[in-house]
Every structure is written in C-alpha cells, then in structure tokens.
C-alpha cells in the first residue's frame, strides 16, 4: 500500500480533502471539510461545542477513521497508510489534549519518554527501558517547559498547568513536526492559560513545528494564531487571518443571538 503524493505544495504540512465523519449512531460530525496548512503556521480551529473540532483533529492523525475524504501529512497520505507506515506518520505528529491524558501512575520523566515510543525497540520499551541518550533528551525537554527537578514525581501529583506542560514536553520529545492541540487550556485556570500557550507557541516559533490548535477563547486566538478556521455543524464556514475574526464576523457566522464574549469564554469581542 503506497501513499499517493499530495496534489500540490511541497511545503504543505497538512492537506485535508473532502473530509466527512458519520458516527455509527448517525451523527454527521464532519461534512466535507477541505483545508491546507503550510509548514510553520499556527492555525486556530474555532467553533461552538459540538461543531466537530475534536473530530477534525482526531481524523488528522487517524485516532478516528474518517468516513470519507483524504488527509496528507507532509505529503504522505495518512488515510491510505496502515500498520508500520501509519505509525511512522503518527510519530511525526504530537498531540496535546484538553484532559492532558498523561499516564497518571508513571513518573513525569516516563511520560516524557513515552514520546519516543515510535522510534524505540519493542522489547526494551515494554520493559520501560530507554537509552541514556533518550533519558538525557527527556530531561532537556522538561527543562524547556520549566519542570526540571520534577522528573521523578508521579504525573498525577502535578497541577493541571504543570501536567499540560509535561504533555508539551512529550511532543518535544517526540520531535514532532506537527502538533495537534485540542483545547489545550480549556480545563485550566484562566491565569495559567498563557503559561501553557506560550510553550505551545515556542514549539511553533523555536522548533518550527506546525500547530493546529482548537480554542474557545477569541483572546487567545488573536494573541497566538497566524490563521483561523471556523467550523459550524461540521462544515468549514470561515478561513482567514485572526484580525479578520472579530465580534462581527463571529455573529455573522454563528447567528445574531450568539455573543462572542459569552460563547467563547473569556473572549474579547
């Protein structure tokens, strides 16, 4: 099974064509979404709750299999990949979740090390063993997110903001070229949001990782994103620069009853 090359653009990080997802219960979560993301972009994905943001991000690394449509990652078609090839493409995609999704009973260091699973030997990784080189790298990643000294703590002993920074370090460890972040700060204290967002921004600016990040907060979108797309009932309804996505655009897209400040919690209209 060889992946077809992407139709165009060698510098394209993600290309999505005609993506649809119908869940077994009949819910159409995505409806013909097409989208291209250039390497180095920080793309914010907006949309009301239930509009399909999480489904879109999960279809991009095939945590969910789309019903229709194709997805290319750096020119390789992930929707046609199987087994080893699928895992190799996934290894280049880091993911950050709203609920952090760390392995709670493992140490912080082990959690960061799990970012290297895609390139580790099977037997040694099943014994939780990683080379000294990888361990050094994991410590460096933790230092980058300001968690040095916490290597041996259990992951669930950390605060929410710290756990999310461990997740960022895991993406760093993974040496991902693309990062999918699904509402990375939605379950954090508003005061801590920037501390996590800044680290995700650093992945984008300093490591050159392309970032796709779903957000609820218009404020954060305008502060961090280089481009915005918006979903409504599974369809792409807006695409443009963050400056263009103001309160009026918001109301035009979501209907006049919607209030950006209320719907996008903490957002500034």
């Amino acid at each position, binding site marked *: 099974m060889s992946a077809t090359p992407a139709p165009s653009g060698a510098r394209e990080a993600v290309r999505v064509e005609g993506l649809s997802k119908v869940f077994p219960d009949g819910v159409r979560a995505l409806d013909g979404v097409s989208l291209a993301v250039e390497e180095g972009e920080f793309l914010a994905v907006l949309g009301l709750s239930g509009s399909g943001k999480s489904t879109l991000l999960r279809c991009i690394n095939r945590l969910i299999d789309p019903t229709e449509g194709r997805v290319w990652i750096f020119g390789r078609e992930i929707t046609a990949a199987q087994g080893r090839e699928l895992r190799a493409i996934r290894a280049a*995609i880091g993911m950050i*979740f709203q609920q952090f*999704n*760390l392995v709670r009973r493992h140490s912080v260091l082990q959690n960061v090390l799990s970012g290297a*699973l895609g390139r580790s030997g099977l037997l040694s990784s*099943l014994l939780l063993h990683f080379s000294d080189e990888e361990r050094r790298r994991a410590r460096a990643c933790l230092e980058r997110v300001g968690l040095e000294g916490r290597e041996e703590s259990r992951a669930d002993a950390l605060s929410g903001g710290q756990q999310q920074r461990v997740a960022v370090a895991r993406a760093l460890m993974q040496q991902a070229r693309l990062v999918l972040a699904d509402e990375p700060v939605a379950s954090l204290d508003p005061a801590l949001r920037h501390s996590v967002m800044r680290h995700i921004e650093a992945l984008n600016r300093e490591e050159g990782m392309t970032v796709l990040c779903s957000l609820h907060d218009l404020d954060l979108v305008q502060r961090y994103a280089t481009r915005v797309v918006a979903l409504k009932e599974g369809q792409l309804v807006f695409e443009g620069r963050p400056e263009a996505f103001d309160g009026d655009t918001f109301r035009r897209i979501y209907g006049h009853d919607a209030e950006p400040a209320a719907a996008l919690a903490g957002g500034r209209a």
Partner: protein
Amino acid sequence: MTDAGAPRRVLRPETPWQKGWRRLQALGIDGLLLALALVMGEFLFHAFSGERGPTGLLLTPEEILGRLAYLPALALGFAGALVWNLFYRSIGAPIGRVLTRGVPEEEADLPWTRTLRGWFGALFVELTFFTGWIITEVQLVTFLTNFNKASDMVRGLASPSGEVLREGLVLLVQTVFLAFMATAFAIPVAFALSFAAARNLTRGSATARILYSVVRAVMNFTRAVEPLVWALIFISWVGIGPFAGVLALWIHSVASLAKLYSEQIESIDRGPVEAITATGASYLQVLRYGVVPQVVPPFLSFTIYRWDINVRMSTIIGFVGGGGIGYILKPRVDLGEWGEVGTLVLLIAVAVWVMDLVSARIRERIV
C-alpha cells in the same frame, strides 16, 4: 401526556418481523408461566390428597414429580396464554406482553392488586414456595425439637481435642500454600486472557471479535463448573494430593480473575490510550503504557481477594482428596470424632479470619 421539557424518546418503527418475533416471545413467556403454575397446582393437589402409591405408603415428592401431566399442562398453558394475549385489552395484559412490549397505557398507573397479572404473579410465587417446601422436605418441627441429637457434636466442637492440633497445623500450612500456588499460577494466564476478553480492546478486527467471543465462552463455562468438580477431574488426572487441589483452584481462579480483570480493562480512561497511540506507538506499546498502568492496582486487589477465597475453597477441595486440611477433616466427620473436628474447624476459622483481615488491609492500601 409528556412534559414539554422531557427528552423525547425516538422510537424506530417496528418491522413486521420484529413485531411477530416479540409476539412470539410474549406467548412463550406466558405459556411457560401458565404451564408451570398448572404443574405446581397439580403437584400440590397430589401432595395434599393423601394418595397412596402401589406400596400402600404415601407418595414421596419424587414419585409425585414422576407422574405429573406435563404435556397436557404445557398445551393448556399455551392455549391459556394465547387467549390471554388475544383478549388482553379487556382482562389486562399478561406478564410476557408487559416484558416484551411494556405496560399498556390504560394499566400504567394501576397498583398490582388491581391487575390480573399482579394476582397471577402473587399466586405463582405462592405456588413456588409451597411446592419448594414439599420437594425439599422441610421439617420445621424436627428442626426445632430434635436439637439434643446434635448436642454432643456441638459439645465436641466447643471442647476441641489437642490430639490433631499438630497434624492440623501442618495441613493448614499446606492449605494456605495450596491456595497461594493456585493464585500465583492463575495470574499470568488470567492477565493474558483478560486483554482478549475486554470488549474495548477487541473491536478492531474480525479476528479480535472472534477471539473475544471464544475466550468469553470458555471462561464462562470454566467458571460455571464448581471447583469441587474440577478437583475430581484433576484427581483422576494427577492423582490424590495437594497438586490436584492446586490445579482445581487454579483453573477456577483463571476464569474468575480473567473476568474481573477484563471488566477493569473495559472501564479504563481512554485518554492515555489515545495519547500513547498518537505518539506512533505499536499495539503492544499502547497496552503497556496506556492500559497496564491503569489496571495494575485493581488487579492486585482482586488477586489478593482471590487468594483469600481460595483458602476457603481449599478446605472443601480437601474433602474429596485435593490436599489441605479438608483431607483429614472428612474422615473425622464420618466417624463422629467431634472433638477433633472442633479443633480442625477452629483452625480453619482462624486462618480464614486472618487471611480476611490481611487481605482487606492490603487492598485498602492499594486502591
């Protein structure tokens, strides 16, 4: 009728096939219930009629069971069920219909005393109780008045003899180790099986789904067979002795633990599994990092509890020759050496009590 705010339940229209199948189910349930009620009625009639058998003695319950008119009762029951299901609008819905199609609207708020099926249900429970009373030959009077016959046994139990103490202690140690080995051998097998028996890990492919069904079926069968029966099987396989007991408890423990383990796996948090999958990890790595850390503490807790259960069961296993303290208990019960029985029973009680205490403490710590 419905509240404006209440969520509306979406009903899919029934196909004629489904409708017919449900009617058949209702008829089957009602037919069987009516037939059973008739048979039990006939049984009670015979039991109280003072009828005598060919030997001139009163009929025993077994003899009565042997001469009941089962087929006519079945025919009559189904005929009754048919009538009841046809005319349920005027006389009230039968139980089978209610179970398969729900309570009809006009009966929705009636207490059971105002419905025919309520009365039928009450009658059915009554019949079952009295039939059971006679079949199991309950003799309340004997139970309450004949206590003195058992009193020397109780006296023996209360004044344990020291003679078997040594032998009993030695075999008690054997019992605890027997239970331990059975549990230890069961852990790796149950652990491996539990992943195949977890629904959420076996949706991927057709092979995985078949594996799931096969493992589940074998496990259910294994668990349904009593450890005592397994002991008899293994005694004829490896001979009388503790090893047969280990094997009997082992196979039962595998099935029980695999079921408990797999239920635990089914209730894990999907989050870490997704996160590990997303790093490009392979299936085994996802199990190791996403699943195993979440299930180890409850697994440990179940396992210790299982050891505790196995200590209790190994006493009974010993009765049939599976080793352990039960082995010397059985002949003393048969010979009526109640003092020695008392010693052994006390030893077992203490061991079970200590195991119980220790395992509860450890489990508290883990979870």
